């Protein structure tokens, strides 16, 4: 046992932190602290700064721009980004479709798409969920019919995050309707400029627009844009979702938010007594910090085990323990936003749109982030699904 980080790992953390201090525009940091979203251009700007540093896609193969860091360093990097807080790269590209392409894609697909993903030249979105298929993803109805060297797609995707910014979408579509549910699905890369693609933004309960409906109306996609084998898309989707789950703990975000709560609670907001003077509030915050620390330790254990696995057997498969990270990670992000909202008091009523009044800057990202992050326990495999995974895959029930 070697509990704690090595001196090299600690130095690496400092290196990342120094880079962020030097390279990240302060306005981006403040926006993220306040629960606001960067604009498309701002995120592209930041991605290029990272790219210039060689850190845009650390977890990718070195050949395609990866850093060769081991899982612990990757975790440290993610943690520092999140807790700074600095913007994370667009996960639909770097963590979802990217790994699918470099693992299952053709040589031509790799050369064409990966460099553009790494620089955010292309903005990708995820065409998985459908109105009738939420947690039961394999029940999807969108069809892709072969027509010469094209597929013709018809159907509708739902809850498509940031599709309004995207120029590419990766789509699960049914290519064999006679096969069983999970079979007969293919994984297609679709240029959103193709005729027949329509995007309709949907307002969410935080008052923002981040999800969309995407409609496909006789959309023609070159067969070259099929990833891997036809009718094998479900395998690639499972691979993708497994990667996704691993990244969902996002402990750094919860740490950053807990720190922001402590900072705000130490101050006199609008002349009121600091909330930290209330022992009940202090206890609530302290109790939450314990849960965050526990999750951080659990994440370290999962990652250390993965590194061990990796050394022994090459690339690891998704660890069912990552369901713990998903459940607790989402719950703690939700709990921190709830505490932040409660800290704000009556000012939580104020809606921060364009017309928001002065004097409530501390309240930004209070209620809205609380509302927004209710999604975390729903998407990426709802927490109910994760509990079933633990019960079956780990406990054998």
């Amino acid at each position: 046992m070697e509990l704690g980080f090595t001196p090299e790992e600690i130095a690496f953390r400092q290196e990342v932190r120094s880079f962020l201090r030097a390279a990240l525009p302060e306005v981006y940091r403040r926006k993220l602290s306040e629960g606001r979203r960067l604009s498309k251009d701002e995120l592209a700007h930041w991605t290029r700064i990272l790219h210039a540093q060689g850190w845009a896609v650390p977890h990718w193969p070195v050949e395609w721009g990866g850093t060769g860091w081991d899982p612990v360093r990757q975790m440290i990097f993610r943690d520092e980004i999140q807790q700074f807080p600095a913007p994370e790269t667009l996960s639909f590209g770097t963590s979802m479709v990217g790994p699918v392409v470099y693992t299952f894609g053709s040589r031509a697909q790799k050369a064409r798409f990966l460099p553009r993903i790494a620089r955010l030249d292309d903005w990708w979105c995820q065409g998985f969920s459908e109105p009738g298929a939420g947690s039961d993803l394999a029940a999807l109805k969108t069809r892709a019919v072969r027509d010469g060297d094209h597929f013709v797609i018809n159907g509708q995707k739902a809850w498509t995050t940031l599709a309004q910014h995207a120029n590419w979408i990766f789509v699960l579509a049914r290519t064999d309707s006679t096969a069983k549910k999970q079979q007969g699905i293919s994984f297609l890369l679709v240029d959103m400029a193709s005729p027949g693609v329509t995007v309709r933004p949907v307002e969410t309960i935080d008052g923002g627009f981040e999800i969309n409906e995407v409609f496909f109306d006789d959309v023609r996609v070159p067969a070259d844009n099929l990833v891997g084998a036809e009718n094998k898309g479900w395998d690639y989707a499972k691979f993708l979702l497994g990667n996704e789950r691993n990244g969902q703990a996002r402990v750094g975000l919860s740490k950053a938010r807990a720190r922001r709560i402590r900072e705000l609670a130490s101050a006199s907001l609008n002349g009121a007594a600091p909330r930290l003077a209330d022992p009940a509030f202090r206890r609530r915050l302290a109790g939450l910090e314990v849960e965050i620390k526990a999750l951080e330790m659990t994440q370290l254990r999962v990652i250390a085990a993965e590194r061990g696995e990796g050394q022994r057997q090459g690339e690891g498969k998704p660890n069912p323990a990552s369901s713990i990270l998903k459940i607790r990670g989402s719950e703690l992000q939700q709990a921190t936003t709830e505490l932040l909202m409660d800290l704000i008091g009556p000012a939580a009523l104020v809606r921060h749109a364009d017309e928001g009044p002065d004097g409530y800057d501390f309240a930004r990202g209070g209620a809205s982030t609380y509302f927004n992050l209710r999604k975390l326990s729903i998407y990426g495999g709802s927490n109910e699904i994760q509990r079933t995974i633990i019960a079956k895959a780990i406990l054998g029930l």
Partner: protein
Amino acid sequence: MNFDLSEEQQLLKDSVARTFAKSYDFEARARILASPAGWSRAAWMQMAELGLLGLPFAPEDGGFGGGPVETMIVMEAIGRALVVEPYLSTAVLAAAVLRHGGSPALRARLVPQVADGCLILAFAHGEPQARWELSDVATSAERVEGGYLLCGRKSVVVGGDVADMLIVSGRMSGPPRHPTGLGLFLVNGSAPGVTIKAYATQDGRRAADIRLDSVFVADVDVVGDPAGALPVIARAVDEAIAAICAEAVGAMDEAVAMTVEYLKTRQQFGVAIGTFQALQHRAADMFVALEQARSMALFAVMSVAEKNPQTRAIAMSAAKIQIARSARFIGEQAIQLHGGIGMTMEYKVGHLFKRLVMIDKEFGDLDHHLDRLAAGTSLLEEA
């Protein structure tokens, strides 16, 4: 001991429910929210016609003599339909201030106008530093020839921009948080020295921050004792708490009903998701939380007319605590069980959730009332 409604009460309940079902369904409400004003005067006048706006006032003042039960009936319906018009601030909160603090002359002047819908009131009491502490008033009220001069800031005044007239609290003497020295003053929203910064609230209502720069209030517009208003304020807020508890029950009831219906109809993995035991038990827990909230809303109604302000305050805090717990649980689970559709503004359940969360932020949140309750004598003390 009888929880059945009287015939008149049942009639009131039915007529309110019928009216909202007809003219305040989800689509109608969406249109109101999207309108420039963000609220509907037509809906307001309809409430006036139904007699709802004059409900809590005594007949001799021009009202209909309704009591806490009648207010509960209306507020529950308002909660269910998510009515955004300022009923609570005008017909409950400001009305209570007038009833308990206003002179007969003042009531004679104002109540008929309120009842017929021409006069919308708001209670401008909260201040930036006060959180929910009722005595924490820094706005000053200075005695001058023929009246008073008010200086200060009021914040998150629900309905503050919609109102024709504000009831403003101001301090004649003593430091903030001192129990005496507070007065209540009627201020026209367009009076010289009044600046109103209006905005929308998270749950689709209107609110305002109000600046008072040497605003003159004539003697005739003082509500009650200009240095002894805190008991009236506390009583009015307690009545508002009882009312908002009923509103929360209406919203929770609707959220539970929508969720159960969704569980019955939504198919996943080839079956209705309501057949999954984990979700069934969650729905059962929601139902239990709803019934506990309903019980405590009734307890608030039972206790709101209590003469001893200490006993009344304890009961209101207890009710608000239960409401806060049930509302948070029911709201969050309603979204969770709906999944993605619950996250959108295109579906009612998300609006119910938002309102339920925001009810916790009015008149004191869970922690505030736990503190207030913990500081007092036991809720279970026997007579």
